[in-house]
């Protein structure tokens, strides 16, 4: 019978335990207060039941002490919940820098996955056990949400944005992958599997079928095809900023702001180049909105990230490394 009636999801990621601990704490608090209220109601309703039709209750109007008690105690308990929940949330949102990166695109109604080495899969995601994985996610149409219950995590993919999600799988197996944000007719068919593999098996799988070259190499081809290289030259002679060594570095903008060149920045600069103009350059770049697919954008980003500081140093190579804040959310 319990084969068919699971009461608790599998724990298969580093934070499944943390989230579940939080869950049990809240269940304990809720159960305590629900039962307390229910018990008091039943006891009072029986003990003080009306014994004659014209009876009235005692002339009690209230008690400041009690009001303070049941204001302050719940306040204290909820603040514990807040702090604990915020702490777990930070863990969920801060990917380790060494995380392996996989690119995900949602479209009605499938998940398209590209691994850095070139493997592509649809509605499946193969990841190794025991290694942090960071997903860089976009969407080609409406909002979707990438949800893996066994990992206790999800994040929306939003048109016009690049969002991220990370996890570290802890147990090999096959786990549900769902789209959690309603996205149209076949929303409930936008599901798949996450296959957590032993590292060796994962390596074997990776070397299985990368026919079209790595993600970055496809990005490089796209970079040539779109003639990006005519302006973005490696030696600061071009009309566009140097891209080599750019990723992760702070960039000075025309309006005086400084932003870190993370994936979101790169994405925005491709689809909406006028949004953030680099100091010292003309706003010449046309938008590529609608000219390249969301997958293409992710390939370009993957390519730009591989560009090391070869010929010329980045605009501010002597500045300290940027803070570890990589997650978009």
């Amino acid at each position, binding site marked *: 019978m319990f084969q068919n009636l699971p009461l608790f999801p599998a724990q298969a990621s580093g934070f499944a335990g943390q989230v579940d601990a939080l869950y049990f704490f809240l269940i304990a608090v809720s159960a305590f207060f629900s039962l307390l209220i229910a018990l008091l109601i039943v006891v009072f309703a029986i003990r003080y039941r009306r014994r004659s039709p014209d009876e009235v209750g005692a002339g009690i109007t209230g008690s400041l002490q009690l009001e303070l008690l049941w204001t302050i105690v719940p306040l204290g308990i909820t603040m514990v919940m807040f702090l604990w929940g915020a702490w777990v949330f930070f863990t969920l949102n801060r990917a380790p820098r060494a995380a392996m990166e996989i690119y995900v695109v949602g479209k009605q109604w499938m998940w398209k996955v590209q691994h850095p080495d070139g493997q592509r899969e649809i509605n499946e995601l193969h990841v190794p056990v025991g290694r942090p994985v960071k997903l860089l996610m976009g969407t080609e149409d409406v909002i979707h949400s990438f949800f893996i219950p066994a990992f206790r995590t999800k994040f929306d993919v939003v048109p016009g944005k690049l969002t991220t999600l990370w996890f570290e799988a802890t147990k090999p197996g096959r786990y549900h992958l769902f789209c959690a944000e309603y996205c149209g007719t076949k929303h409930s068919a936008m599901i798949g599997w996450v296959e957590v593999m032993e590292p060796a098996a994962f390596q074997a799988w990776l070397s299985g079928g990368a026919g079209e070259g790595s993600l970055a190499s496809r990005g490089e081809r796209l970079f040539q095809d779109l003639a990006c290289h005519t302006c973005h030259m490696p030696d600061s002679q071009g009309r566009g900023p140097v891209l080599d060594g750019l990723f992760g570095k702070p960039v000075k903008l025309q309006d005086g702001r400084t932003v870190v060149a993370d994936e979101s920045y790169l994405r925005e600069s491709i689809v909406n180049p*006028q949004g953030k103009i680099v100091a010292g350059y003309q*706003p010449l*770049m*046309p938008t590529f909105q609608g000219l390249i697919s969301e997958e293409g954008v992710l390939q370009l980003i993957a390519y730009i990230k591989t560009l090391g500081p070869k010929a010329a140093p980045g605009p501010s190579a002597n500045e300290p490394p940027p803070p570890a804040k990589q997650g978009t959310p």
Partner: protein
Amino acid sequence: MSDAQFVPSPATHAHHPAQAHHFDSLEQQQEASTLGMWVFLVNEIMFFGGLFMAYLVYRTWYPDAFAAGSSHLNIPLGATNTAVLIISSLTMALAVHAAQTSWRRGQIVFIILTIALGTTFLVIKAFEYADKFTHHLVPGPHFQWPDEKLRAPVEIFYSLYFALTGLHALHMVIGIGIMLWLLWMAWRGRFDAEYYSPVEVSGLYWHFVDIVWIFLFPLLYLIGAHVRHV
């Protein structure tokens, strides 16, 4: 039972003909009308507030596009309309004053003036809209903008422009409708020093619509319009 003694109904003394039966006095009725209009205006502020919020977000995101979009609006016409509306608020206030002083002819004259000024505003606005149509500045499939790089965010600017000014114009149309009704009532001599709250609360509404424009004019026409754009 002690919580409900009863007082005799004040129906014994004569009522003003405009007093509704469920009010105890004309004064109570007028207070209720005024408070009702204020509450309604608070609601209106939130109504426009949602749009102003969208404007604020996108203006912050796309300052250049918004400046470029602004510079295609006709500042002289916008300024004229601002003046027209401010004067109409004055005539409205005078109409309220005429009602409070039982001056029937004054009520009629000032209400007609208010209607005329409101109509002037709408006519000028219609010319501006027509200009946007001929220059393909109406969002949608026919929207055109010379600078391809700014096209998308400028389209947002014009979307907000039409949403904001369109809703404002709709409020003006409703306001003129109310004025026509007031004119009819004033013509029949319904307003006097004792009973003038319809004129007063309609005036509140009129001033509110005026004030919305006072915000719209700088936000849409003036800010950044001097910035030269490619």
